């Protein structure tokens, strides 16, 4: 997974994101923040799942679906390749 674009994003603590290349803005929730920061740090999906399971109240089944959906959205916005 190429996360070069993610590394260039300006991300604020509130979950507001500005992409300086496309000019697009996004908002994400706390879980989205964890996923993006982890991807930026080069962590794989398995590690990200463990991290979120420790921090948030969710099931593995639900989490897998949510992460998969989120990654699709990131791809659609050309933020990952």
């Amino acid at each position: 997974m190429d996360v070069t674009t993610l590394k260039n994003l300006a991300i604020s603590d509130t979950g507001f994101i500005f992409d300086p290349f496309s000019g697009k803005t996004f908002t994400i929730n706390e879980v989205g923040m964890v996923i993006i920061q982890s991807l930026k740090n080069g962590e794989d999906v398995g590690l990200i799942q463990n991290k979120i399971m420790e921090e948030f109240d969710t099931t593995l089944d639900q989490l897998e679906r949510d992460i998969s959906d989120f990654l699709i959205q990131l791809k659609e916005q050309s933020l990952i390749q």
Partner: protein
Amino acid sequence: MTIRVAVTGLNAVDSPGPGVPILRSLKESPLKPSLIGLAYDVLEPGNFMGDLIESSYIIPYPNASRDLLLERILYIHEKKKIDVIIPALDSELDNFIAISDELSKKNIHFFLPDKKGLKMRDKTMLKETLDDEDVLLPETYIIQDSAAIAQIAEKIGFPMFIKGIFYEAFYARTLQEAVGFFYYLAGKWGIPIILQKCITGEEINTCAFSRNGKMISHVVMKKMYVTDKGKAWAGVTITNPEVSKMSEKILSKIGWNGGCELEYITENKTGKIYLLEINPRFPAWVYLTTAAGLNLPEMLLRASLGEETPVNNSYKSGIVFVRHSWDEIVPMSYIESLTTKAELNHKD
């Protein structure tokens, strides 16, 4: 000694001219110039911005003769000793280019494109100019007669853009609409009229200052909010190396001298970047360049005064502008002064 700079394009209306943002940028320059407005109409809002200009003068419309303009500028010069004039509108450039040599002899300086450069970036010439360059242009046709619209619509379909030779563009969904816009634009700006294939996508513009074809400085902006006239009402500075490189190449090809705006669109379907047009002056959003760290009007002023202008393309991305309207309350004496004397001195 204070530098005196006169700027045109004070029509800060719903489709605003660049004069006011140029003045605003110059006001923030360390050169601290004294600023004079040159307006075509009494009610151009810039006339009343006493915090920016010390005085304002009405000048003859671009369709009046160059001699009338020369006479008027010399009159203003006699009173104000102008050092530099920055013309800010497309339609007046020919006249200012024509009188610039005579005014140079009176120590009034300009930094203008030459007639060749002006012609090369003309909407009707762009395809020819950039034919051998790797620059995508939407399919474009130049017509003299409304009868040609139906024929061209068979090739590019509807919706299409109908553009005037100098200003204004309309989005036509049907043949009837297109014919209506043709006559409106022909009546207002003359012929030819430009028909352009509609590309759906995000609009990205470059504001640049170029010297003999060398891009000295530029800022790329993405439109965030567009008016019904297609004007950016909000925008954000972005970093787009592809657009920057393309702009540099185009300006070099046309040997551009002065300020300008290059308008692009990134097609949603393909992600390809198309050049829509090149405007031969700074855009109305030029103050955003100053806010992002590159005062392009100041660079143009320095170049007009014969100073070197080193290349500087380093600006902050993520700087946002949001335009707004403001109802200025104006003393009737200001209107009287501009109407009866064609001038207004804010210091009186």
